[in-house]
């Protein structure tokens, strides 16, 4: 039964004689704020308060807190059924501690699940943990508190420095993940702005066999000197070539593993040009609709306990997936391709089989990608036959190269998201003479490194273990919002560049990958019960103290260095 308490919906259910009251939390109901007053720094003391007191946009929070508090009266036990991760565990803990009261914690248990399907929820109910998951809560709490300490202090230090130097009221921010990420963009920008292209020459040749034209690839990709290229052209132009060798081989293309969040975000960008944030938003909607498993996962593995046949059975009822689902079901054994990355809390993203209703355009795109990736990871490898014919032209080696997919396997399941490039060659024989019908040389230049786009920056962050699967996309959005970076092909703005350079000079540790990685390791240790929240928070405070004191001493110089750029953020050419 669904009821309302003012604007908040909640549900009443019965199970084995117990009455259950189910209410959602609307994300974080509580947020950190400073203890004491004054917009200054350093600030080391904080407290949790209703999120509406920190962020005026969180207007609905009050109503949810009131409903949770009202419904908790007379309740004899509580169950945290939020998402199974640090954030979910902390959301439930804070709601219980502050909206219900500290006494509720000892009477609370934890449900763990990765999909919102009836089967999984019933199983999670029957096997729930006897207490809250305190180590996970502690790790989540430490992440919030340490990020708050870095963010509030360094952002205020930057903002006040600029205000003091120029009177400008622009709000600047930096955090322990923002810093290294912006630094990555800066390093790339420096390489681009200082790049000197080097010339080289490429040979383009063609032959005609049985009326069809085929490209002839010269043995060297690049020639460094113009004179070499000209000599080659004069020695080969108008000559015949002779096939002196043929090499045939076949290549097995294994299907890719199922998606984790980063892989899904990258693939959605490659295929649809959807930003990582849009992809995450669509995936979360699909999860809440029970159509897919929990998307904030690092795992590229499907556990052996997952009912693959059950999911395929349901997917076979969808006309779009029926053909491949039925084909897979007809096999006696199903063995998914597994990736290297695993996540103890959640499996790789996979469909539940529930048939989606009324999906928005982006949700439908993401759903299709996830289902097809799930199907293909159960598919057979593709087999591609390759043939290389070596052709001698007046002592120079050229190659005729062909490839043909002899068994489509999983490639067939991933249409239209994968392109199967084929070049069919005619029958070749050693000793065969073929004409060089065209030969030209063209000058090219080495290319500067590519600018990041939101997807490649996300991968770079992932490779350097910066941020978490849940926060990376948001960090990139913040850098855009603050005016530090711009364009789909990401360029650093003058303001972004000045911020990094200033931090490099006065507190390089905030830009260091090592510092944020060490903190992530500490959070991991807290989650494993090997370290305490207090010890890690104290370490962070100790690390911040000298940085902030140096900032205070040099406030005017720092402010002046940044102020010039913040007045008008210029973007380097080439950014779109």
């Amino acid at each position, binding site marked *: 039964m669904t009821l309302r308490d003012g604007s908040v919906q909640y549900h009443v259910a019965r199970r084995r004689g117990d009455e259950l009251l189910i209410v959602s939390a609307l994300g974080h109901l509580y947020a950190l704020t400073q203890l004491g007053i004054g917009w200054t720094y350093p600030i080391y003391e904080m407290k949790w308060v209703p999120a509406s007191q920190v962020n005026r946009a969180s207007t609905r929070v009050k109503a949810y807190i009131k409903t949770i508090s009202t419904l908790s009266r007379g309740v004899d036990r509580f169950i945290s059924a939020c998402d199974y991760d640090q954030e979910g565990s902390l959301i439930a803990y804070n709601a219980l501690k502050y909206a219900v009261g500290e006494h509720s914690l000892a009477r609370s248990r934890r449900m763990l699940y990765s999909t919102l399907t009836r089967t999984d929820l019933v199983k999670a109910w029957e096997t729930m943990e006897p207490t809250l998951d305190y180590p996970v809560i502690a790790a989540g709490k430490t992440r919030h508190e340490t990020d708050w300490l870095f963010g509030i202090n360094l952002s205020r230090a930057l903002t006040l420095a600029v205000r003091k130097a120029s009177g400008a009221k622009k709000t600047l921010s930096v955090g322990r993940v923002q810093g290294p990420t912006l630094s990555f963009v800066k390093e790339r920008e*420096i390489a*681009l*702005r*200082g*790049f*000197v*292209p*080097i*010339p*080289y020459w490429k040979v383009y040749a063609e032959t005609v066999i049985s009326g069809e034209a085929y490209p002839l690839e010269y043995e060297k990709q690049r020639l*460094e*000197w*113009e004179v070499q290229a000209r000599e080659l052209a004069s020695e080969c132009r108008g000559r015949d070539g002779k096939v002196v060798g043929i090499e045939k081989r076949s290549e097995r293309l294994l299907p890719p593993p199922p998606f984790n969040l980063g892989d899904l975000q990258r693939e959605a960008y490659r295929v649809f040009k959807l930003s990582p944030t849009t992809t995450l938003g669509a995936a979360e909607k699909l999860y809440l609709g029970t159509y897919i498993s929990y998307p904030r996962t690092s795992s590229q593995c499907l556990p052996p306990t997952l009912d693959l046949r059950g999911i395929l059975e349901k997917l076979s009822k969808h006309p779009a997936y029926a053909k491949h689902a039925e084909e897979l079901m007809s096999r006696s054994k199903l063995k998914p391709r597994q990736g290297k990355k695993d996540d103890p809390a959640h499996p790789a993203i996979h469909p539940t089989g529930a048939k989606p209703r009324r999906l928005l355009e982006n949700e439908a795109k993401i759903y299709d990608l996830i289902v097809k990736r799930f199907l293909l990871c159960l598919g057979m490898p593709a087999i591609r036959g390759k043939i290389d014919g070596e052709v001698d032209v007046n002592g120079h080696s050229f190659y005729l190269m062909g490839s043909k997919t002899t068994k489509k396997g999983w490639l067939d399941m991933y249409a239209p998201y994968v392109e199967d490039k084929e070049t069919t060659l005619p029958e070749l024989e050693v000793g065969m003479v073929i004409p060089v019908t065209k030969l030209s040389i063209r000058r090219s*230049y*080495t*290319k*500067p490194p590519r600018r990041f786009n939101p997807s490649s920056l996300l991968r770079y962050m992932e490779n350097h273990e910066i941020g978490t699967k849940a926060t990376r996309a948001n960090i990139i959005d913040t850098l855009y919002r603050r005016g530090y970076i711009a364009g789909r092909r990401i360029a650093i703005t003058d303001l972004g560049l000045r911020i990094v350079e200033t931090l490099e000079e006065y507190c390089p540790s905030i830009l260091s990958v090592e510092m944020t990685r060490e903190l992530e390791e500490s959070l991991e240790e807290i989650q494993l019960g090997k370290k305490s929240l207090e010890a890690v928070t104290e370490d962070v405070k100790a690390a911040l103290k000298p940085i902030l004191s140096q900032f205070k001493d040099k406030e005017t110089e720092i402010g002046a260095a940044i102020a*010039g750029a913040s007045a008008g953020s210029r973007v*380097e*050419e080439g950014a779109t």
Partner: protein
Amino acid sequence: MTGCRVCDREKQEDSVYCEHHQAAYSNLEESYLQWRRALGLSWTEYLEKVGKVSGTGIWVKEVIKVILSGG
């Protein structure tokens, strides 16, 4: 220390350029050998050519402009 010959940043010790433009100048010097071998150009011809290639970095182009204008 006074300003960089190209921009308003401080110039580096023993240089007329700031950190970024000095790095761009060093890259230009290092690449000249490869350009000379490839095309047999003089230093000035080289600067003129590099300045027109689309992939050349903006700081490199700024340094070239200053050098060619006799700065």
